[in-house]
């Protein structure tokens, strides 16, 4: 497919998806006919617009995004570093692997009570949760990436005269970079999941808070706005991340690595 055709295709499929969703929703709300439990799309749209006007919606989205960014800014480099070290040095892996396995088997959400206990209902406890989730996710994909660096690549670099340290910097890290990026992408999704959970059990802003607050006021429209906003935010972050990787730094796209 050519580029403009692709864009048209995307727009069309997006529009159709939205239309299908809205139509099903309208039919359901008409049949169900209990607006207090299931308001119609138009009602929800109107409240969303007024929340947008008053700036309330953007504040909630902004708080969630800010938490995500702070947690990731620390979590990504830490996870990438430890993951690379574990993949490259078997001893480091042997030492840390039991902990990684354990961490990986416990859903991050189950650790929320822990972070509340240690850090209280605070901004820091939310950062800590996101940091934990994202760094673990990036760690796993970085480690897998290092392990999949091809032997031929290593041999080629040795044959061109590279020593061990240079090999790590000039071959291993660039070879692993796409894996790290895809770990970041997964991390964004999991991070959104955790931040919402953290906001639901104790926060005064953010999309998770919006949903919880809607529940206590029995304002289903606000809950739906929170849920849809969350889905859109997650989709937007994912798509823009992919776009940036493909177009701004195509060198590091996984697409370059396959199709050989």
């Amino acid at each position, binding site marked *: 497919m050519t580029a403009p055709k692709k864009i048209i295709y995307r727009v069309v499929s997006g529009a159709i998806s939205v239309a299908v969703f809205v139509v099903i929703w309208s039919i359901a709300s008409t049949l169900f006919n209990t607006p207090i439990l299931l308001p119609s799309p138009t009602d929800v749209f109107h409240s969303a617009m007024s929340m947008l006007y008053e700036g309330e919606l953007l504040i909630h989205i902004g708080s969630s995004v800010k938490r995500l960014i702070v947690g990731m800014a620390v979590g990504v480099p830490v996870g990438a570093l430890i993951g690379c070290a574990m993949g490259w040095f078997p001893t480091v892996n042997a030492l840390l692997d039991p902990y990684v396995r354990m961490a990986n088997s416990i859903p991050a959400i189950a650790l929320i009570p822990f972070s509340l206990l240690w850090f209280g209902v605070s901004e820091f406890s939310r950062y800590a949760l996101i940091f934990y989730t994202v760094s673990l996710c990036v760690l796993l994909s970085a480690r897998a990436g290092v392990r999949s660096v*091809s*032997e*031929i*690549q290593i*041999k*080629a*670099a*040795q*044959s*061109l*005269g*590279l020593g061990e340290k240079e090999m790590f910097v*000039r*071959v291993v890290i*660039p*070879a692993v*970079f796409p894996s790290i990026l895809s770990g970041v992408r997964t991390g964004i999704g999991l991070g959104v999941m955790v931040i919402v959970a953290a906001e639901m059990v104790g926060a005064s802003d953010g999309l998770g808070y919006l949903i919880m607050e809607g529940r206590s006021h029995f304002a289903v429209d606000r809950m739906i706005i929170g849920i849809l906003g969350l889905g859109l935010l997650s989709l937007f972050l994912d798509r823009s991340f992919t776009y940036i990787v493909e177009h701004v730094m195509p*060198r*590091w796209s996984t*697409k*370059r*690595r*396959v*199709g*050989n």
Partner: protein
Amino acid sequence: MAEWKNLVIKDVTKRFDSGPCILSGIDIRISRGSFVCVLGPSGSGKSTLADLIAGFVKPSTGDILLDHEKVTGPGPDRVVIFQDFSNALFPWLTVAENVEFGLKKIIGDKAARRRKVLDTLGMVKLSDHIDKFPSELSGGMKQRTQIARGIVMNPDILLMDEPFGALDAITRRHLQDELVKIWEELGQTIIFITHDIGEALLISNRVLVLSSGPNAEIVEDFKQEHRFEDPSDKGFSAAYRRIENSIESSLKT
């Protein structure tokens, strides 16, 4: 022009751990500037021999010497060109950057380095593709890039392990011709591993035949004064049959 080094493989045997002896009693001298092909049935230990010369693995007994100096590990004086071109090139670097990869340590001046890279890419006819990524190249172009990345290092020996084995016949033919031209121009030693007898006779002036393993040894050291230009040349079929026979008889024993 630099003085290339001679390669001496002195009584080398190789076994991996406690496994069977793969290579036994390999004793060859390859003087500078020769174009040598190593032929042998698959699994005989051709790649192992290449790995030994490259320094990726160490001989169990015997020595590998470059002008009296023992080979202890891989290095840019013996650049290897691999058959697996998809993995051998660095996918995050363009063609020019791949060729520049090893040169960074040798030529500090950026402009001079760039000039050398472009010259070399000209030799392998890739001048029009310098800024492409490996994923945008055909197999033949990838192998040209690999060759450029090797010769730009000015190695004593270019070690090629079945480099054209995964290419189609026409591309292979072109690359064979171009490789010979490059060799005639530069003059360093090329050790070219192949299992294609015809290819060996058409590009090299010395063919070493490895018997089937284990305990593979050199069963034939065929030297020709002139390369055959074409399979229809006088003597080609005779040479072909002679080498074929020595491979066949090594299979029976």
